[in-house]
Protein backbone atom coordinates (compact mmCIF):
# COMPACT_ATOMS: atom_id res chain seq x y z
CA UNK A 1 0.00 0.00 0.00
CA UNK A 2 1.52 3.28 -1.18
CA UNK A 3 1.11 5.12 2.15
CA UNK A 4 2.99 2.41 4.09
CA UNK A 5 6.81 2.60 3.85
CA UNK A 6 7.59 -1.00 4.80
CA UNK A 7 8.52 -4.02 2.81
CA UNK A 8 7.44 -7.48 4.03
CA UNK A 9 11.09 -8.21 4.83
CA UNK A 10 11.39 -5.12 7.01
CA UNK A 11 8.26 -6.09 8.92
CA UNK A 12 9.81 -9.48 9.63
CA UNK A 13 13.06 -7.85 10.77
CA UNK A 14 11.23 -5.60 13.17
CA UNK A 15 9.11 -8.40 14.60
CA UNK A 16 12.28 -10.40 15.15
CA UNK A 17 13.92 -7.47 16.91
CA UNK A 18 10.89 -7.20 19.20
CA UNK A 19 10.91 -10.95 19.80
CA UNK A 20 7.39 -11.47 18.48
CA UNK A 21 6.47 -14.30 16.13
CA UNK A 22 3.62 -12.49 14.46
CA UNK A 23 1.92 -9.13 14.48
CA UNK A 24 -1.07 -10.74 16.26
CA UNK A 25 1.10 -11.14 19.34
CA UNK A 26 1.35 -7.36 19.59
CA UNK A 27 -2.44 -7.21 19.93
CA UNK A 28 -2.65 -9.81 22.67
CA UNK A 29 -3.74 -7.17 25.19
CA UNK A 30 -7.08 -7.02 23.38
CA UNK A 31 -9.27 -9.86 24.70
CA UNK A 32 -9.59 -12.57 22.03
CA UNK A 33 -13.35 -12.34 21.72
CA UNK A 34 -13.12 -8.69 20.68
CA UNK A 35 -10.59 -9.12 17.90
CA UNK A 36 -12.14 -8.97 14.44
CA UNK A 37 -11.86 -12.15 12.39
CA UNK A 38 -13.14 -10.65 9.15
CA UNK A 39 -12.12 -7.64 7.18
CA UNK A 40 -14.17 -4.46 7.49
CA UNK A 41 -16.93 -4.10 4.91
CA UNK A 42 -15.86 -0.83 3.38
CA UNK A 43 -15.20 0.01 -0.27
CA UNK A 44 -11.66 -0.02 -1.65
CA UNK A 45 -8.75 -0.20 -1.92
CA UNK A 46 -8.83 2.44 -4.65
CA UNK A 47 -5.90 3.63 -6.69
CA UNK A 48 -5.33 7.37 -6.90
CA UNK A 49 -7.14 7.52 -10.24
CA UNK A 50 -10.17 5.68 -8.83
CA UNK A 51 -10.35 8.04 -5.87
CA UNK A 52 -10.31 11.02 -8.20
CA UNK A 53 -12.97 9.42 -10.40
CA UNK A 54 -15.22 8.76 -7.41
CA UNK A 55 -15.16 12.42 -6.41
CA UNK A 56 -15.49 13.68 -9.97
CA UNK A 57 -18.62 11.56 -10.28
CA UNK A 58 -19.98 13.14 -7.12
CA UNK A 59 -19.08 16.62 -8.35
CA UNK A 60 -21.10 15.94 -11.50
CA UNK A 61 -24.15 15.35 -9.32
CA UNK A 62 -24.01 18.80 -7.77
CA UNK A 63 -24.74 22.30 -9.07
CA UNK A 64 -22.45 22.64 -12.07
CA UNK A 65 -23.38 25.34 -14.53
CA UNK A 66 -25.79 27.17 -12.23
CA UNK A 67 -25.47 30.83 -11.23
CA UNK A 68 -26.18 31.35 -7.55
CA UNK A 69 -27.70 34.33 -5.72
CA UNK A 70 -27.23 32.76 -2.31
CA UNK A 71 -25.37 34.38 0.60
CA UNK A 72 -26.90 33.91 4.02
CA UNK A 73 -23.62 33.35 5.83
CA UNK A 74 -21.56 31.74 3.03
CA UNK A 75 -20.26 33.96 0.22
CA UNK A 76 -18.74 33.55 -3.24
CA UNK A 77 -15.74 35.82 -3.60
CA UNK A 78 -12.68 35.93 -5.81
CA UNK A 79 -9.81 33.85 -4.53
CA UNK A 80 -6.27 34.13 -5.84
CA UNK A 81 -4.45 30.96 -6.90
CA UNK A 82 -1.53 32.27 -4.83
CA UNK A 83 -3.39 31.33 -1.65
CA UNK A 84 -3.40 27.63 -2.49
CA UNK A 85 0.20 27.84 -3.68
CA UNK A 86 1.13 28.89 -0.15
CA UNK A 87 -1.17 26.73 1.95
CA UNK A 88 -0.36 23.62 -0.08
CA UNK A 89 3.29 23.94 0.87
CA UNK A 90 4.03 20.91 3.00
CA UNK A 91 5.63 23.05 5.71
CA UNK A 92 2.28 24.73 6.31
CA UNK A 93 -0.14 21.96 5.33
CA UNK A 94 1.49 19.12 7.23
CA UNK A 95 2.88 20.90 10.27
CA UNK A 96 1.59 20.54 13.80
CA UNK A 97 0.24 23.03 16.31
CA UNK A 98 3.16 25.33 17.17
CA UNK A 99 3.73 24.19 20.76
CA UNK A 100 7.46 23.75 20.01
CA UNK A 101 8.13 27.32 19.04
CA UNK A 102 11.71 26.94 17.78
CA UNK A 103 10.59 24.81 14.84
CA UNK A 104 7.25 26.48 14.22
CA UNK A 105 8.21 30.11 13.71
CA UNK A 106 6.58 30.11 10.26
CA UNK A 107 3.19 29.17 11.66
CA UNK A 108 3.56 31.44 14.70
CA UNK A 109 4.52 34.55 12.75
CA UNK A 110 1.64 33.92 10.34
CA UNK A 111 -0.77 33.64 13.29
CA UNK A 112 0.60 36.90 14.72
CA UNK A 113 -0.06 38.55 11.36
CA UNK A 114 -3.58 37.07 11.28
CA UNK A 115 -4.28 38.40 14.78
CA UNK A 116 -3.07 41.83 13.66
CA UNK A 117 -5.19 41.88 10.50
CA UNK A 118 -8.30 40.82 12.40
CA UNK A 119 -7.76 43.52 15.05
CA UNK A 120 -7.30 46.16 12.37
CA UNK A 121 -10.40 45.02 10.48
CA UNK A 122 -12.71 44.87 13.46
CA UNK A 123 -11.47 47.99 15.23
CA UNK A 124 -10.59 45.94 18.32
CA UNK A 125 -7.34 45.70 20.29
CA UNK A 126 -6.66 41.98 20.17
CA UNK A 127 -7.84 38.92 18.23
CA UNK A 128 -7.14 35.22 18.72
CA UNK A 129 -5.71 32.60 16.36
CA UNK A 130 -9.17 31.47 15.16
CA UNK A 131 -12.29 29.65 16.30
CA UNK A 132 -14.16 26.91 14.39
CA UNK A 133 -16.46 29.35 12.60
CA UNK A 134 -18.63 32.44 13.05
CA UNK A 135 -21.42 30.57 14.85
CA UNK A 136 -19.16 29.11 17.55
CA UNK A 137 -17.16 32.34 17.76
CA UNK A 138 -20.39 34.18 18.58
CA UNK A 139 -21.32 31.55 21.15
CA UNK A 140 -17.92 31.73 22.81
CA UNK A 141 -18.14 35.54 22.81
CA UNK A 142 -21.39 35.26 24.75
CA UNK A 143 -19.85 32.79 27.21
CA UNK A 144 -16.93 35.20 27.61
CA UNK A 145 -19.36 38.03 28.41
CA UNK A 146 -21.08 35.77 30.94
CA UNK A 147 -17.77 35.12 32.70
CA UNK A 148 -16.78 38.78 32.68
CA UNK A 149 -20.08 40.20 33.96
CA UNK A 150 -21.17 37.32 36.16
CA UNK A 151 -24.66 37.71 34.67
CA UNK A 152 -26.96 35.10 33.14
CA UNK A 153 -29.28 36.77 30.62
CA UNK A 154 -28.43 37.31 26.96
CA UNK A 155 -30.43 39.43 24.51
CA UNK A 156 -29.93 38.32 20.91
CA UNK A 157 -31.39 40.14 17.93
CA UNK A 158 -33.73 37.95 15.91
CA UNK A 159 -32.02 39.33 12.84
CA UNK A 160 -28.85 37.42 13.77
CA UNK A 161 -28.23 34.39 11.49
CA UNK A 162 -30.74 31.64 12.47
CA UNK A 163 -28.07 28.94 12.64
CA UNK A 164 -25.87 31.12 14.85
CA UNK A 165 -28.80 31.52 17.23
CA UNK A 166 -29.41 27.75 17.16
CA UNK A 167 -25.79 27.03 18.10
CA UNK A 168 -25.96 29.57 20.92
CA UNK A 169 -29.12 27.93 22.26
CA UNK A 170 -27.50 24.49 22.25
CA UNK A 171 -24.55 25.74 24.32
CA UNK A 172 -26.69 27.99 26.53
CA UNK A 173 -28.99 25.18 27.68
CA UNK A 174 -26.16 23.65 29.66
CA UNK A 175 -24.53 26.71 31.11
CA UNK A 176 -27.60 28.21 32.73
CA UNK A 177 -27.74 31.10 30.27
CA UNK A 178 -31.18 32.56 29.50
CA UNK A 179 -31.33 33.59 25.86
CA UNK A 180 -34.08 35.99 24.78
CA UNK A 181 -34.69 37.29 21.29
CA UNK A 182 -35.23 40.94 20.41
CA UNK A 183 -37.46 41.51 17.36
CA UNK A 184 -36.59 43.61 14.33
CA UNK A 185 -38.35 46.85 13.52
CA UNK A 186 -40.21 47.76 10.33
CA UNK A 187 -37.00 48.87 8.62
CA UNK A 188 -35.20 45.60 9.40
CA UNK A 189 -32.89 46.92 12.12
CA UNK A 190 -33.04 45.88 15.80
CA UNK A 191 -36.13 47.24 17.54
CA UNK A 192 -34.47 49.67 19.92
CA UNK A 193 -37.58 50.24 22.04
CA UNK A 194 -38.00 46.53 22.65
CA UNK A 195 -34.30 46.26 23.43
CA UNK A 196 -34.43 49.04 26.01
CA UNK A 197 -37.50 47.46 27.55
CA UNK A 198 -35.74 44.12 27.95
CA UNK A 199 -32.51 45.53 29.38
CA UNK A 200 -32.15 45.19 33.14
CA UNK A 201 -29.06 44.90 35.30
CA UNK A 202 -28.99 41.13 34.81
CA UNK A 203 -27.99 41.13 31.14
CA UNK A 204 -24.52 39.82 30.30
CA UNK A 205 -24.57 40.64 26.60
CA UNK A 206 -26.55 42.25 23.82
CA UNK A 207 -25.80 40.46 20.55
CA UNK A 208 -26.46 41.92 17.11
CA UNK A 209 -25.22 41.11 13.62
CA UNK A 210 -24.25 43.66 10.99
CA UNK A 211 -25.00 43.52 8.15
CA UNK A 212 -27.74 41.41 9.68
CA UNK A 213 -29.32 38.28 8.21
CA UNK A 214 -31.55 40.44 6.00
CA UNK A 215 -28.52 42.34 4.70
CA UNK A 216 -29.49 45.44 6.65
CA UNK A 217 -26.76 47.51 8.31
CA UNK A 218 -27.31 48.03 12.04
CA UNK A 219 -26.57 51.37 13.74
CA UNK A 220 -23.95 50.46 16.35
CA UNK A 221 -23.88 53.61 18.46
CA UNK A 222 -27.40 53.63 19.97
CA UNK A 223 -27.37 49.85 20.48
CA UNK A 224 -23.99 49.96 22.25
CA UNK A 225 -25.18 52.85 24.39
CA UNK A 226 -28.26 51.00 25.56
CA UNK A 227 -26.26 47.88 26.34
CA UNK A 228 -23.54 49.71 28.24
CA UNK A 229 -26.01 51.84 30.17
CA UNK A 230 -27.22 48.71 31.95
CA UNK A 231 -23.77 47.19 32.36
CA UNK A 232 -24.19 44.63 29.58
CA UNK A 233 -21.46 43.88 27.06
CA UNK A 234 -22.07 44.70 23.41
CA UNK A 235 -21.27 41.73 21.17
CA UNK A 236 -21.31 42.12 17.38
CA UNK A 237 -21.41 39.17 15.00
CA UNK A 238 -20.30 39.62 11.38
CA UNK A 239 -20.98 36.96 8.75
CA UNK A 240 -19.82 38.88 5.66
CA UNK A 241 -16.27 39.96 6.49
CA UNK A 242 -15.75 41.77 3.16
CA UNK A 243 -18.23 44.38 4.40
CA UNK A 244 -15.49 45.67 6.71
CA UNK A 245 -13.63 46.87 3.63
CA UNK A 246 -16.22 49.58 3.23
CA UNK A 247 -18.17 49.76 6.48
CA UNK A 248 -16.87 51.30 9.65
CA UNK A 249 -15.99 48.62 12.19
CA UNK A 250 -17.87 48.09 15.47
CA UNK A 251 -15.35 49.86 17.71
CA UNK A 252 -18.10 50.29 20.33
CA UNK A 253 -18.27 46.52 20.65
CA UNK A 254 -16.68 44.79 23.62
CA UNK A 255 -16.33 41.58 21.65
CA UNK A 256 -16.57 40.96 17.91
CA UNK A 257 -17.30 37.47 16.54
CA UNK A 258 -16.73 37.12 12.84
CA UNK A 259 -16.83 34.52 10.11
CA UNK A 260 -13.68 34.74 7.93
CA UNK A 261 -14.92 32.49 5.10
CA UNK A 262 -15.15 35.44 2.69
CA UNK A 263 -11.38 35.80 2.82
CA UNK A 264 -10.10 33.16 0.44
CA UNK A 265 -12.05 30.12 1.68
CA UNK A 266 -14.24 28.21 -0.76
CA UNK A 267 -17.89 27.64 0.21
CA UNK A 268 -17.14 23.90 0.42
CA UNK A 269 -20.69 22.95 1.37
CA UNK A 270 -20.41 24.71 4.72
CA UNK A 271 -16.87 24.18 6.01
CA UNK A 272 -14.09 24.34 7.04
CA UNK A 273 -14.21 28.09 7.65
CA UNK A 274 -12.42 30.44 10.06
CA UNK A 275 -14.07 31.96 13.11
CA UNK A 276 -12.62 35.13 14.59
CA UNK A 277 -12.93 36.51 18.09
CA UNK A 278 -11.62 40.01 18.79
CA UNK A 279 -11.88 42.15 21.89
CA UNK A 280 -10.14 44.60 24.22
CA UNK A 281 -6.75 44.02 25.83
CA UNK A 282 -8.28 44.19 29.29
CA UNK A 283 -10.45 41.13 28.53
CA UNK A 284 -7.72 39.03 26.96
CA UNK A 285 -7.36 36.63 29.89
CA UNK A 286 -10.98 35.61 29.42
CA UNK A 287 -10.59 35.02 25.70
CA UNK A 288 -10.90 31.45 24.48
CA UNK A 289 -8.54 29.78 22.03
CA UNK A 290 -4.91 30.17 21.11
CA UNK A 291 -2.92 33.39 21.11
CA UNK A 292 0.48 33.98 19.51
CA UNK A 293 2.67 36.55 21.24
CA UNK A 294 5.89 38.30 20.29
CA UNK A 295 8.98 37.72 22.40
CA UNK A 296 12.76 37.37 22.18
CA UNK A 297 15.12 34.43 22.43
CA UNK A 298 18.24 34.17 24.57
CA UNK A 299 20.22 36.06 21.91
CA UNK A 300 17.73 38.91 21.65
CA UNK A 301 16.22 37.82 18.33
CA UNK A 302 12.53 38.45 17.76
CA UNK A 303 10.41 35.34 17.80
CA UNK A 304 6.85 34.23 18.48
CA UNK A 305 5.28 31.79 20.95
CA UNK A 306 1.84 30.58 21.95
CA UNK A 307 1.13 32.52 25.10
CA UNK A 308 -1.36 33.00 27.95
CA UNK A 309 -1.85 29.26 27.72
CA UNK A 310 -3.09 29.06 31.31
CA UNK A 311 -6.52 30.04 29.92
CA UNK A 312 -6.65 26.87 27.84
CA UNK A 313 -7.84 23.31 28.42
CA UNK A 314 -4.45 21.59 28.47
CA UNK A 315 -3.43 23.54 31.57
CA UNK A 316 -6.61 24.83 33.19
CA UNK A 317 -8.64 21.68 32.45
CA UNK A 318 -12.06 22.10 34.08
CA UNK A 319 -11.51 25.81 34.73
CA UNK A 320 -10.47 26.62 31.16
CA UNK A 321 -12.09 29.51 29.28
CA UNK A 322 -13.12 27.00 26.61
CA UNK A 323 -12.53 23.36 25.68
CA UNK A 324 -11.19 24.32 22.25
CA UNK A 325 -7.95 22.65 21.22
CA UNK A 326 -7.69 22.16 17.43
CA UNK A 327 -8.93 25.32 15.75
CA UNK A 328 -8.86 26.35 12.06
CA UNK A 329 -5.19 27.34 11.67
CA UNK A 330 -4.76 26.53 7.97
CA UNK A 331 -7.97 28.40 7.13
CA UNK A 332 -6.73 31.39 9.11
CA UNK A 333 -3.48 31.19 7.14
CA UNK A 334 -5.45 31.17 3.89
CA UNK A 335 -7.30 34.28 5.06
CA UNK A 336 -3.99 35.93 5.99
CA UNK A 337 -2.49 35.25 2.57
CA UNK A 338 -5.70 36.38 0.87
CA UNK A 339 -5.85 39.67 2.78
CA UNK A 340 -2.16 40.30 2.20
CA UNK A 341 -2.79 39.88 -1.52
CA UNK A 342 -5.82 42.14 -1.52
CA UNK A 343 -4.14 44.71 0.68
CA UNK A 344 -5.74 47.93 1.79
CA UNK A 345 -6.80 49.07 -1.67
CA UNK A 346 -7.80 45.67 -2.97
CA UNK A 347 -10.16 44.98 -0.09
CA UNK A 348 -11.75 48.37 -0.46
CA UNK A 349 -12.17 47.91 -4.18
CA UNK A 350 -13.66 44.45 -3.69
CA UNK A 351 -16.11 45.84 -1.17
CA UNK A 352 -17.04 48.71 -3.50
CA UNK A 353 -17.69 46.26 -6.33
CA UNK A 354 -19.98 44.25 -4.03
CA UNK A 355 -21.89 47.40 -3.10
CA UNK A 356 -22.26 48.42 -6.73
CA UNK A 357 -23.33 44.98 -7.99
CA UNK A 358 -25.93 44.60 -5.24
CA UNK A 359 -27.33 48.08 -5.77
CA UNK A 360 -27.52 47.49 -9.51
CA UNK A 361 -29.24 44.16 -8.88
CA UNK A 362 -31.89 45.63 -6.61
CA UNK A 363 -32.74 48.30 -9.13
CA UNK A 364 -33.10 45.67 -11.88
CA UNK A 365 -35.21 43.39 -9.69
CA UNK A 366 -37.50 46.18 -8.56
CA UNK A 367 -38.33 46.80 -12.24
CA UNK A 368 -39.97 43.35 -12.31
CA UNK A 369 -43.74 43.79 -11.74
CA UNK A 370 -44.79 42.46 -8.35
CA UNK A 371 -41.36 42.63 -6.73
CA UNK A 372 -41.03 44.96 -3.75
CA UNK A 373 -38.21 45.93 -1.42
CA UNK A 374 -38.83 44.61 2.10
CA UNK A 375 -36.70 46.88 4.27
CA UNK A 376 -35.99 50.54 3.74
CA UNK A 377 -32.47 50.63 5.20
CA UNK A 378 -28.86 50.75 3.97
CA UNK A 379 -27.40 47.44 2.83
CA UNK A 380 -24.03 46.11 1.58
CA UNK A 381 -24.19 43.06 -0.74
CA UNK A 382 -27.39 41.37 0.46
CA UNK A 383 -30.95 42.67 0.44
CA UNK A 384 -34.43 41.32 0.99
CA UNK A 385 -37.22 41.43 -1.59
CA UNK A 386 -40.90 40.51 -1.38
CA UNK A 387 -42.47 38.42 -4.11
CA UNK A 388 -46.16 38.09 -4.91
CA UNK A 389 -46.01 34.30 -4.43
CA UNK A 390 -44.14 31.57 -2.56
CA UNK A 391 -40.39 31.89 -2.85
CA UNK A 392 -39.97 28.11 -3.04
CA UNK A 393 -42.15 27.90 -6.15
CA UNK A 394 -40.35 30.80 -7.82
CA UNK A 395 -36.98 29.20 -7.03
CA UNK A 396 -37.97 25.90 -8.65
CA UNK A 397 -38.93 27.83 -11.76
CA UNK A 398 -35.61 29.72 -11.69
CA UNK A 399 -33.83 26.41 -11.31
CA UNK A 400 -35.10 25.33 -14.72
CA UNK A 401 -33.18 28.27 -16.12
CA UNK A 402 -30.04 27.18 -14.24
CA UNK A 403 -30.31 29.85 -11.59
CA UNK A 404 -30.07 29.11 -7.89
CA UNK A 405 -32.48 31.66 -6.52
CA UNK A 406 -32.32 33.71 -3.32
CA UNK A 407 -32.66 32.26 0.18
CA UNK A 408 -36.29 31.71 1.17
CA UNK A 409 -36.78 33.49 4.49
CA UNK A 410 -40.04 31.71 5.34
CA UNK A 411 -38.53 28.79 7.25
CA UNK A 412 -36.54 30.72 9.85
CA UNK A 413 -39.02 33.67 9.78
CA UNK A 414 -42.59 32.38 9.31
CA UNK A 415 -43.94 35.92 8.94
CA UNK A 416 -41.68 36.41 5.90
CA UNK A 417 -42.81 33.48 3.70
CA UNK A 418 -42.97 35.58 0.54
CA UNK A 419 -39.60 37.24 1.19
CA UNK A 420 -36.21 36.25 -0.13
CA UNK A 421 -32.62 37.21 0.65
CA UNK A 422 -30.64 38.08 -2.48
CA UNK A 423 -26.83 38.15 -2.43
CA UNK A 424 -24.71 39.60 -5.23
CA UNK A 425 -20.94 39.74 -5.04
CA UNK A 426 -18.09 40.92 -7.27
CA UNK A 427 -18.17 37.44 -8.88
CA UNK A 428 -21.65 37.83 -10.41
CA UNK A 429 -21.39 39.12 -14.02
CA UNK A 430 -23.80 41.90 -15.06
CA UNK A 431 -25.22 39.63 -17.74
CA UNK A 432 -26.20 37.09 -15.10
CA UNK A 433 -27.86 39.73 -12.94
CA UNK A 434 -29.90 40.84 -15.97
CA UNK A 435 -30.68 37.23 -16.83
CA UNK A 436 -31.87 36.65 -13.26
CA UNK A 437 -34.19 39.65 -13.47
CA UNK A 438 -35.52 38.36 -16.80
CA UNK A 439 -36.03 34.84 -15.46
CA UNK A 440 -37.79 36.20 -12.38
CA UNK A 441 -40.10 38.23 -14.61
CA UNK A 442 -40.90 35.12 -16.64
CA UNK A 443 -41.46 33.07 -13.50
CA UNK A 444 -43.91 35.59 -12.06
CA UNK A 445 -45.80 35.78 -15.37
CA UNK A 446 -46.55 32.06 -15.18
CA UNK A 447 -50.05 31.25 -13.93
CA UNK A 448 -50.04 30.21 -10.30
Amino acid at each position, binding site marked *: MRYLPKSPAERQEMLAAIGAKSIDELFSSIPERFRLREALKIPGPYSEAEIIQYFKDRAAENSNGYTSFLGAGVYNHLRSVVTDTIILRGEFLTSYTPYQAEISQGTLQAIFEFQTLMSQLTGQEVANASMYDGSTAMTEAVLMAERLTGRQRVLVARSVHPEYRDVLKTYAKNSGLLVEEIPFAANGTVDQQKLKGALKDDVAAVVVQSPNFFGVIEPYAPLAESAHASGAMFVVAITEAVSLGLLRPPSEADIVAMEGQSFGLAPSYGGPFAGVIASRDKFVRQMPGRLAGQTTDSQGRRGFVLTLA*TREQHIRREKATSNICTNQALCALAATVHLTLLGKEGLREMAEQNLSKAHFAISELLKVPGVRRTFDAPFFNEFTIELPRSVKIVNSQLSREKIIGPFALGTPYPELTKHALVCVTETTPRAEIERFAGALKRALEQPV
Partner: protein
Amino acid sequence: MAYPKNYRYTKEHEWIDVKGDLATIGITDHAQHELGDVVFVELPKPGAKIEAGKSFGTVESVKAVSEIYAPAAGEVLEANGELHNTPEKINSDPHGAAWLIKVRLSNPAAVSNLMDAAAYEAYIAEKGKETSA
Protein backbone atom coordinates in the same frame (compact mmCIF):
# COMPACT_ATOMS: atom_id res chain seq x y z
CA MET B 1 15.48 32.13 52.08
CA ALA B 2 14.60 32.27 55.75
CA TYR B 3 11.04 31.85 56.98
CA PRO B 4 10.11 34.82 59.25
CA LYS B 5 9.70 33.61 62.80
CA ASN B 6 6.64 35.73 63.55
CA TYR B 7 4.63 34.40 60.59
CA ARG B 8 2.35 31.35 60.59
CA TYR B 9 2.22 28.86 57.70
CA THR B 10 -0.28 26.53 56.03
CA LYS B 11 0.18 23.12 54.41
CA GLU B 12 -0.69 24.76 51.06
CA HIS B 13 2.30 27.08 51.44
CA GLU B 14 0.69 30.36 52.40
CA TRP B 15 2.00 32.58 55.20
CA ILE B 16 0.06 34.94 57.45
CA ASP B 17 1.41 37.83 59.56
CA VAL B 18 -1.05 38.84 62.29
CA LYS B 19 -1.20 42.19 64.12
CA GLY B 20 -4.25 42.34 66.37
CA ASP B 21 -7.24 41.60 64.18
CA LEU B 22 -5.44 42.69 61.01
CA ALA B 23 -3.32 40.31 58.94
CA THR B 24 -1.17 40.23 55.81
CA ILE B 25 -1.18 37.07 53.65
CA GLY B 26 1.24 35.81 51.00
CA ILE B 27 2.77 32.63 49.55
CA THR B 28 6.02 31.14 50.78
CA ASP B 29 9.42 30.92 49.19
CA HIS B 30 8.87 27.17 48.75
CA ALA B 31 5.68 27.87 46.79
CA GLN B 32 7.29 30.39 44.43
CA HIS B 33 10.17 28.03 43.84
CA GLU B 34 7.81 25.18 42.87
CA LEU B 35 5.85 27.47 40.60
CA GLY B 36 8.74 28.97 38.68
CA ASP B 37 8.62 32.42 37.10
CA VAL B 38 5.33 34.03 38.05
CA VAL B 39 3.56 35.77 35.17
CA PHE B 40 0.17 36.71 36.59
CA VAL B 41 -1.71 36.98 39.88
CA GLU B 42 -5.46 37.10 40.35
CA LEU B 43 -6.55 38.63 43.67
CA PRO B 44 -9.90 39.50 45.25
CA LYS B 45 -11.15 43.08 45.52
CA PRO B 46 -11.41 45.00 48.79
CA GLY B 47 -14.62 44.08 50.53
CA ALA B 48 -14.53 40.45 49.40
CA LYS B 49 -14.92 37.82 52.10
CA ILE B 50 -12.44 34.98 52.37
CA GLU B 51 -13.08 31.62 54.10
CA ALA B 52 -10.44 29.55 55.86
CA GLY B 53 -9.23 26.73 53.60
CA LYS B 54 -11.03 28.06 50.52
CA SER B 55 -9.33 29.47 47.43
CA PHE B 56 -9.30 33.25 47.14
CA GLY B 57 -7.15 33.73 44.06
CA THR B 58 -4.56 32.24 41.71
CA VAL B 59 -0.89 32.57 40.90
CA GLU B 60 0.19 31.66 37.39
CA SER B 61 3.42 30.60 35.80
CA VAL B 62 3.74 29.97 32.07
CA LYS B 63 2.68 26.34 32.37
CA ALA B 64 0.65 26.12 35.57
CA VAL B 65 -1.97 27.79 37.70
CA SER B 66 -2.01 27.47 41.47
CA GLU B 67 -4.92 28.26 43.72
CA ILE B 68 -4.15 30.34 46.81
CA TYR B 69 -5.98 29.15 49.92
CA ALA B 70 -6.97 31.43 52.79
CA PRO B 71 -5.15 30.61 56.06
CA ALA B 72 -8.00 32.21 57.98
CA ALA B 73 -11.42 33.80 57.47
CA GLY B 74 -11.91 37.53 57.09
CA GLU B 75 -12.60 40.54 54.89
CA VAL B 76 -10.17 41.82 52.28
CA LEU B 77 -9.03 45.39 52.97
CA GLU B 78 -6.40 45.74 50.27
CA ALA B 79 -4.87 43.75 47.41
CA ASN B 80 -1.26 44.36 46.39
CA GLY B 81 -1.69 46.48 43.23
CA GLU B 82 2.03 46.34 42.33
CA LEU B 83 1.81 42.66 41.49
CA HIS B 84 -0.25 43.44 38.43
CA ASN B 85 2.69 45.12 36.70
CA THR B 86 5.53 43.29 38.44
CA PRO B 87 4.37 39.75 39.26
CA GLU B 88 8.04 38.71 39.36
CA LYS B 89 8.22 40.23 42.86
CA ILE B 90 6.64 37.02 44.07
CA ASN B 91 9.77 35.18 43.00
CA SER B 92 12.24 37.70 44.43
CA ASP B 93 10.54 38.78 47.65
CA PRO B 94 7.66 36.40 48.50
CA HIS B 95 7.71 37.13 52.23
CA GLY B 96 7.92 40.91 52.02
CA ALA B 97 7.15 43.23 49.10
CA ALA B 98 5.08 40.54 47.35
CA TRP B 99 2.40 40.26 50.05
CA LEU B 100 -0.90 39.41 48.35
CA ILE B 101 -3.73 40.76 50.50
CA LYS B 102 -4.36 42.56 53.77
CA VAL B 103 -7.42 41.42 55.71
CA ARG B 104 -9.43 42.03 58.85
CA LEU B 105 -9.69 38.64 60.53
CA SER B 106 -13.03 37.38 61.84
CA ASN B 107 -11.32 35.05 64.31
CA PRO B 108 -7.69 36.07 65.05
CA ALA B 109 -7.30 33.33 67.67
CA ALA B 110 -7.71 30.57 65.05
CA VAL B 111 -4.37 31.49 63.48
CA SER B 112 -2.43 30.00 66.38
CA ASN B 113 -3.49 26.53 65.11
CA LEU B 114 -1.28 27.01 62.05
CA MET B 115 2.35 25.90 61.84
CA ASP B 116 5.09 28.18 63.08
CA ALA B 117 8.31 28.75 61.09
CA ALA B 118 10.11 25.74 62.58
CA ALA B 119 7.19 23.39 62.00
CA TYR B 120 6.78 24.62 58.42
CA GLU B 121 10.47 24.15 57.62
CA ALA B 122 10.26 20.62 58.98
CA TYR B 123 7.10 20.01 56.92
CA ILE B 124 8.69 21.02 53.62
CA ALA B 125 11.85 19.08 54.40
CA GLU B 126 9.69 15.98 54.94
CA LYS B 127 7.81 16.59 51.67
CA GLY B 128 11.12 16.94 49.87
CA LYS B 129 12.13 13.46 51.05
CA GLU B 130 8.82 11.97 49.90
CA THR B 131 9.04 13.23 46.33
CA SER B 132 12.62 12.11 45.74
CA ALA B 133 11.95 8.65 47.21
